[in-house]
Each structure stands twice: as C-alpha cells, then as structure tokens.
C-alpha cells in the first residue's frame, strides 16, 4: 500500500514544478521495492489531473501547467523503463493529431492545447502550423490518430477546416477520425455547418470534448 504522504507529495511536486524532487520520489519509491503502477495510478495520475483542474478553475498559471506536463513526461518515462514486456504504466487515453490549417501561421493557442492534452494523459502529435489538408490526413493515418484537432485564427483560413471534412468524407475516412475545430473566430455553428464532430472554445474545453468523443474519463 502506497504511503499517503507520497500521494500528497506527488501532487505537490507537479503543482510546484519541482522536477528534481519528482525524480527523487520515483527513484526512492522504486528502490524501496514499491509498485510502479501503484505510484502512477495513486500518485502522479491523480496529481496531474488535479493540476489540470486547478488550471481550469483559474488557480494555476499556464506556464505552471506546462512545467507539470513536462515533469509528468519524465516521470512516466522513468516508470516505463522499469516495466518489462512493453506494459505501459500510463495507458494513453487516445492519440490526438493537432495542426494549424494551411495559410495560417498563428499557433500559440495550439501550443496551449498540446500542453493541456498531454497533462491529461493524451498522446499528442503536433503537426505545426500552415499544414496542408492532405498532409494532416496522411499524418493522422501514419500515427493512427483517434482525433484530428485543427485551429484557424483567421476568417480567411477557416474554410480549410471545411476542406478537411470534405476530403475525409470523400476518402471514406470520416468514421476513422473524430474532428475537433477551434480558433478565435470559430463558433459551434461553424463546427456544425462543416460537419466537425466537436467545437472547442478553449484548451480546457478541447480536453473535455475529446474525453467525450472518446468516452474516457
């Protein structure tokens, strides 16, 4: 049974972005013969969820969230190394491909979405900005994505989100990927009109929508 003080400290090191201490906790726990799965499931995973929750409630700054996500990645890698037979300590909830559409070079919002999704246990592939529709689809197939999320900040590039839906349908891929659209001028109405599976008004909302689409917690 994992010690309660360790559970509390895992959440604290994530929130306070104390990477060195996080590494120390993992090392000490494992060398004492503790179960790596238990450390993740009872310690770090609830910890990172609490971090995301605090951000959602406006209690945490975005850079703190990004630091927490980075620590989470380091910790997960350390734990995975100790496990044999390719069992992953942290089963990813799903794979998300994310891109800013062609013609659009704005991507700061997208970077926030990437961090928050990683913090929430999704595997995220960031295809970058100004990405052509065909390229988005090819990458989605290659990485076997569950979700394709696109962002458009300009009204002149929003039609590329529609193009994606059209091409996915014409190539018979619409059922293979769920699509989420976002970006400042994008609205739920636009998402419905073009046939996207969801509209995300911000990063937090994006995480919620993806959880709904994939029926995960």
């Amino acid at each position, binding site marked *: 049974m994992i010690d309660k003080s360790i559970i509390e400290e895992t959440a604290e090191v994530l929130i306070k972005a104390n990477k060195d201490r996080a590494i120390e906790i993992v090392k000490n726990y494992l060398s004492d013969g503790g179960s790596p799965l238990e450390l993740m499931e009872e310690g770090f995973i609830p910890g990172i969820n609490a971090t995301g929750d605090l*951000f959602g409630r*406006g*209690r*945490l*700054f*975005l*850079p703190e969230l990004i630091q927490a996500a980075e620590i989470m990645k380091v910790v997960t890698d350390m734990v995975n190394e100790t496990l044999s037979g390719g069992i992953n300590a942290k089963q990813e909830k799903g794979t998300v491909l994310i891109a800013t559409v062609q*013609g659009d*070079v*704005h991507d*700061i*919002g997208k970077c*926030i979405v990437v961090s928050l999704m990683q913090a929430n246990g999704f595997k995220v592939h960031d295809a970058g900005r*100004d990405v052509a529709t065909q390229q988005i689809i090819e990458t989605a197939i290659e990485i076997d994505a569950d979700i394709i999320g696109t962002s458009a900040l300009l*009204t*002149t*590039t*929003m*039609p590329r989100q529609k193009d994606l839906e059209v091409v996915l349908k014409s190539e018979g891929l619409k059922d293979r990927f769920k699509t989420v659209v976002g970006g*400042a*001028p994008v609205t739920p109405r636009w998402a419905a009109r073009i046939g996207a599976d969801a509209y995300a008004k*911000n*990063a937090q909302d994006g995480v919620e929508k993806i959880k709904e689409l994939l029926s995960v917690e």
Partner: protein
Amino acid sequence: MLGYQIEGITNEQLHRIHHASIKILENTGIKIESDEATEIFHGAGSEIVKKGDCFVVKIPPSVVSDCVQWAPERFVLYGRDPKHDHLIEPGSSCYTLFGENSYTNDLYTLKHRTCTKKDLGDATRLADALDEFAIIEKCMGSRDKPAETQSMHNYEAIVSNTSKHAFHGFFSGRNSIKIVEMAAACVGGMENFIKRPCVSTTVCPTSPLTLSKNCCDVIIECSRLGVVVCSITMPLSGATAPTTIAGTLVVQNAELLGSLVLTQLTSKSTPFIYGSVGTIMDLKLGNPAVAAPECGVLNVGTAKMAQYYGIPSWCGSGVSGSKLMDVQAAYEFNTNTAIALLAGSNVIYGCGSIESGLTFDFAKLILDAEQLRNLKWIKNGMDISDETIALETIQSVSSGGEYLSSKHTLKHMKSMSQRDLFDCMDRDTWVKKIGGKDIIERAYEKARFLIKNHKPMALPEGAEDAMEAIINECEI
C-alpha cells in the same frame, strides 16, 4: 502645439532597447519564410542560415541604421478627395478603426452575427461621416466572399464608401498588385495613383521573430508600387514574447526593424509605419488580455521607439475584451487610448471594437468618436497667454458679476468642448428631450441615421465596373 505629453522613458533607456534589438537581429536573426525576401536580405550583406524549409537572416547593424535613415519621417496619406489628405509627421495624431473583426452586432436587430461585405461598407460609410477619423482602416472582413480574394472585396467595399485614405491588409503579393489596380481605377488611372496613392497596406510579423511568406510578399510588392507599408506586430507578453514589457519591446522592435529593412532594401525611402498591437497573454486563461494596463505601457514604448528612429508610429489601443457595449468597454477604451495619445502615437487604432477585436459594434464607433474629441481636447492642453489669462476681463467683471455677457466669452466660447450624445442635461430636460433613453440606444440611432443619409464622394465613372472585372478575373 504639442500639448500634454507622457515622457516616461529616457533616451538612455531607448538606446538600451535599441541595442538589445540590434543584437537580436545580428546574432539570433529573424526567420524569413520567403525565398525572394531572403535573397533581398542576403544581397544587402545579411548572413543567412537554413532553418527547416526557410532561412533565418542575421542583419548587420549598419544595414539597419542605413534603412532607418532612409525611411521618411513625414509623408502624406492621400485621400481620394484632396480635402482628406492627412500629413503624418512628428506631433501629428489621428485615430482609426480596428482591423480584424469577424462578427458584428446587426445594426437593426442587434443580433450578434458573422460580418459581410455590406457591413464593411456600412461601417466605412459611418467612419467617412465622422470627422474624428482622418483615415480609414478595414474594420471587418467580407466573410461572405472567398478567402483568396477577400482582401479585394474588402477594398471595393471600403473605397466605394469613403474618399479618405484607407489602410487594410492586402493578404498576398498577387492581391497587392490587384488592389493597386483597383485603387488606380478609382483615381483616374495609374499615373494619378503613383502621384497620390490613396490606399496603404498593413502587414503583420509573427511573434516571435518571424516574417511569414505573405507578409514578405506584400511588403515587397507594396514597396515596389510606392505604397505605404504599416507593419503591425502583436507580441503577447508571456506567450510569444518575454513576460516583461521591456523584453517584449525588444522583440517587437526587432520584428519591426526587420520589416522596415525589407521595405527599404526593396525600394529606398518607402514610407513605413512602426506599429504594434502588443499586449499580455492572460496566463490563467491562455487568452490575450487586449486592454490590460501593460498594453498602455507598451504603447508608450512603441510611440517613443518610433520617435527615437524618426518614423511614424501606430498603436493598437481601445479594443475591449468585453462582449457587450458596457462599462468595461468604455473604461478599457478610454484608459489605453488616452495613454497612446499622450505618448504621441501618430495613429491610434482600435475604435469600434469589442470582444478582443472579434466584434465590430456600430454604436461603439459613434461613442468612441465622441470620447476621442474629449481626449484630443485634453491632449491639446491649456494655452497660457495675455489673451487667455484675461486679466482685464476679470478686473472689469470684478466680484459678484457674470461672464455670460462679456465680449471675452463671446470670443472664446466656441473653443469650449461640445457634447453630442454624452449627456449633462438636468433630469426633466433629459426625459422630455430624449425620452430618458440610454446612450447606447441613441448611438445606434445616430449610426443608422448617418449610414442612411451620409453620401460619400462618388467613384469616377467606370471605376465600379473596372474593380468588378479585376476581382472576377481572379475568381475564375
């Protein structure tokens, strides 16, 4: 008369910002996503380093200082109608609309909806009717038109509704050439346009330290065509620039100097405007806080850096984060607009916009214009002379008299500030005269009246057909 001014930054501090930006340009470089622009920088002695699909250019300090010298300090922004010519020079200031709204509150139903080419035309007509706006900026996109030619449709809507000088983003190199052809058709041919260019472009560097392909293409084409280039960068402190305002100023200065250099290397003495709509990112929400106090402080930096280089400045200020025409919208407009004006910014843009620059509101434009009059009045400050001290008049009225019937009052009363919609009536008069109506309702009424009744200067014969033909040719 310069009037009241914010100083706030010493020359030594401006030097420090300048030198930091010069170091960035020389050692870190800026990313240029256009091969043609890379060639131009390279030809002038910049080092080029491959980064991904494009190049980072490292610009020597001597190239930057030459280009700054070549960029003019004063130039005329020509109207289609010469009475609207606006001289931009040290000490001059003017206001204009905010550029990238995607929605509007419908003028009649007040319903929030996607904006159209007609909305852009109506808003432009309204700004044409308001004397507070010396120049026009595209305030909405023609979202009912195709993306590739939208900037051409935008220009058609603008030029058909105003004879003032117009700014808007030309979007691409091809569209730059086509928009200039359209503008030429509206002033009686290319020869006339070259003498009196009546349209200018805005371009946007991408923070941090990137000039996208479209940005470079538009800069290059417009510099060749003799069109004024207004480069407006939007660093977000904490996200695309350092959290500190000084650091943000260094980043934006490097981006603006980079675009300035491209204009001058393409065509020496191209008129260039040094612009910013920078602000902070709210790091709890992940959204830009467009009207944060940092925006006001950064605008002082923008205006002062431009003055340091002897080039005109353009400050984004007055846009509100509020979704409604409410008290927040008014406070936010006023605070940062007043600061940008007092800092000596040559163009202040942000009028008519709420929801962080996503929604244009017609009543907001009317009320912003009225408040701009007040701010300008304050900036002009107080004239102190024998005439204004009025010693003789004070002695002659003496104690217990009145000034209503004095000659001095008759002579100076028209220079007092005037109110239009802002109300200082007593309650009974307010109820009788205007039915106790809210100012926003009265502002919409005024907007409807002006849009219906104001007649902008007509286009010359054949101009409409010529513009339509140019657009059609690009849409085939």
